[in-house]
Structure formats: structure tokens, C-alpha cells
């Protein structure tokens, strides 16, 4: 029997209502539903698994404390993205992570599709790590979350045109960064 989107939405609405009333199990369901999204945003931003887990937990802690402000499942998703993004920026500024990453510190390889080059994907993640924070988040929201410019603008509280130009600039920088990485590897070998 096909589960329609409407029934899925009803299920999440029910869990949200119960969680607001203090139902721990319902809150746990919400955590389980969204932990992938929150963790992934943090991980792709910070490129550090344990930092990302810490940050994700803090987001859910904050959610627990402000649950009564959440109006709907869609609002919850938007709220989680926004808070995760803000915490990523705060964390990024604290850690001053705008530096080149050495190959040894590269994040674990992604499970890639047969057509994707694992080395390419690894290089892409490394290049992403050196982008400025806002640019990094714009790229993550676009390509991890599949958001459009208007949605990204809402989440990151930026004008839409700025999002579009940032995205364009970020992709150009990623290409430059990737080309630089390839040259470094070649130099190391030859």
C-alpha cells in the first residue's frame, strides 16, 4: 500500500503535537526523522565528525527548549536548517577553519555511485572546506538539501540575488580549488 505524502505529514504533525506536550518518545521520533539532515549540514560544513555530532546534538537540545514555537512539520524543517546553519557559522568563526586541509586530514570517502569518481568527491569536499562560511552553506543548502535560491535566502537570511551570485562565485571557486588540488597531487608525484 503506497504511503502518500499526506499521511506522512499527518504522522509528523502528530509526533510534533505530542512532543510539544512533553512526550519524550515523540521527540525522539522527530530527532530520528531529522538527524540525517542536521548532522550532514554540520558535517559538510565542519568536515569533522565529532564536532558535527556535538553541533547536531546542540541543535536538537535547542529545539527541545523552544518546541512550542514550532508550528508545523514544514516549519520544523526550516527551523532546523536555519539554526544548524547559524551554529555552523558560529562554530566556524570559533575554530578559524579557513585553512587548506592536508590530504591526511581529508574526510572519510563518501559511498559513491558507480559513475562518480571517489577521488573527485573527496577533492570536492576538501575544496568546499576552504570556502568562506556563507558560501559553503549556500553550496550545502543547494546541493545537499536541494533548496532553490528563494528557500536558501529564507534559511540563511540573505537576499535572493546575493544567494544566486554567491552560488555562482562558489562554484567558480570550487573549480579553481579543485584544479589547484590536482596540480598539488601531480607535483607531489612528479
Amino acid at each position: 500500500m503506497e504511503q502518500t505524502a499526506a499521511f506522512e505529514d499527518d504522522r509528523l504533525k502528530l509526533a510534533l503535537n505530542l512532543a510539544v506536550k512533553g512526550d519524550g518518545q515523540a521527540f525522539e521520533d522527530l530527532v530520528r526523522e531529522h538527524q540525517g539532515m542536521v548532522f550532514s549540514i554540520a558535517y559538510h560544513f565542519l568536515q569533522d565528525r565529532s564536532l558535527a555530532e556535538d553541533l547536531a546534538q546542540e541543535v536538537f537540545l535547542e529545539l527541545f527548549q523552544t518546541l512550542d514555537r514550532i508550528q508545523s512539520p514544514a516549519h520544523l524543517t526550516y527551523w532546523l536548517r536555519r539554526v544548524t546553519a547559524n551554529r555552523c557559522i558560529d562554530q566556524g568563526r570559533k575554530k578559524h577553519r579557513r585553512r587548506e586541509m592536508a590530504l591526511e586530514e581529508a574526510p572519510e570517502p563518501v559511498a559513491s555511485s558507480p559513475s562518480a569518481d571517489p577521488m573527485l568527491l573527496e577533492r570536492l569536499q576538501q575544496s568546499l572546506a576552504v570556502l568562506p562560511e556563507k558560501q559553503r552553506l549556500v553550496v550545502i543548502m543547494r546541493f545537499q538539501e536541494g533548496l532553490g535560491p528563494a528557500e536558501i535566502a529564507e534559511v540563511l537570511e540573505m537576499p535572493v540575488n546575493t544567494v544566486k551570485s554567491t552560488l555562482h562565485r562558489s562554484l567558480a571557486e570550487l573549480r579553481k580549488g579543485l584544479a589547484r588540488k590536482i596540480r598539488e597531487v601531480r607535483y607531489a608525484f612528479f
Partner: protein
Amino acid sequence: MHFSEDDLREALKRKDPGEGFTQRTMARVNQARVNQALAEGTAPPAAKKVNGKFLAWWTLRPAWTVVVAAVLLLACGIGGYQYSEYRHAEEMRIARAKQQQLQQEAERARDQAIMALEIARAKLNHVLQHAQLQAEPSDKVRRQRL
């Protein structure tokens, strides 16, 4: 080296935080609840010694007050959690049953609608064909002759 947007999507695919993340998160949330409750609790004022030693037993030191309050809170919390778990399971069961019922009703309505439109089609064409046959009696006679 060139990359496509699909490569970027692949590189930024959502990752699972790993086993135990939910439990660790819930543990932090529950801990925060307890800490908050403790922080909001105040030590009971020292009881006035109206009858001297008779009432002295319930004048507790602040540290012990906190411990007692924490134990009571934990006991209430566990009991409340279990009750809410049961209530949640019950509500989820009712919600699932309701969803299933809605789904079945929707499928029945769909089948009825399709059948109804088929009947409408059949009758519409039936009437049109009869009307058309009546409009062309000469054709009919010609066909009969053939």
C-alpha cells in the same frame, strides 16, 4: 578537472550520524531537563523551631534538599516518561488505524469513480449510437440490402 552538479550532489549526500546518535542526543536532552528542574528548584526555608527539636527533622541542609529533589524528580520523570510512552504508543496505534481506514476508503472511492465513469461512457456512447442510427436510416437499409 571538471565536475558536474551531480558530482557535487553526490559529494554532499546526506550522511547518517551513526549508531547511537539518537540515544546520545536524548540522553543530553533528558539531562538538560533534570538540570533545568534542579536550577529552578529552591531550597525550602529553614523551619521555625516552634517546638524545638520536634520539628527540627524537616529542616534539611541545601545539599540534601537538592539530592532529595533530584531523586523525587527522577522518580517522577521515569514514571511520567513511562506513562507518556504508553500514551504515545496508544495514540500512534489509533492514528495508524485511522490512516489505514482512510487509505481503504480512498481506494474504494477511486474504484467506484472509475466504474462510474465507465458506465457513463458506455451509456453516453449507447445513446449517441442509437441517435446516429436513427439519423441515417438509409445507410441502415443499404447495409441490410448488401
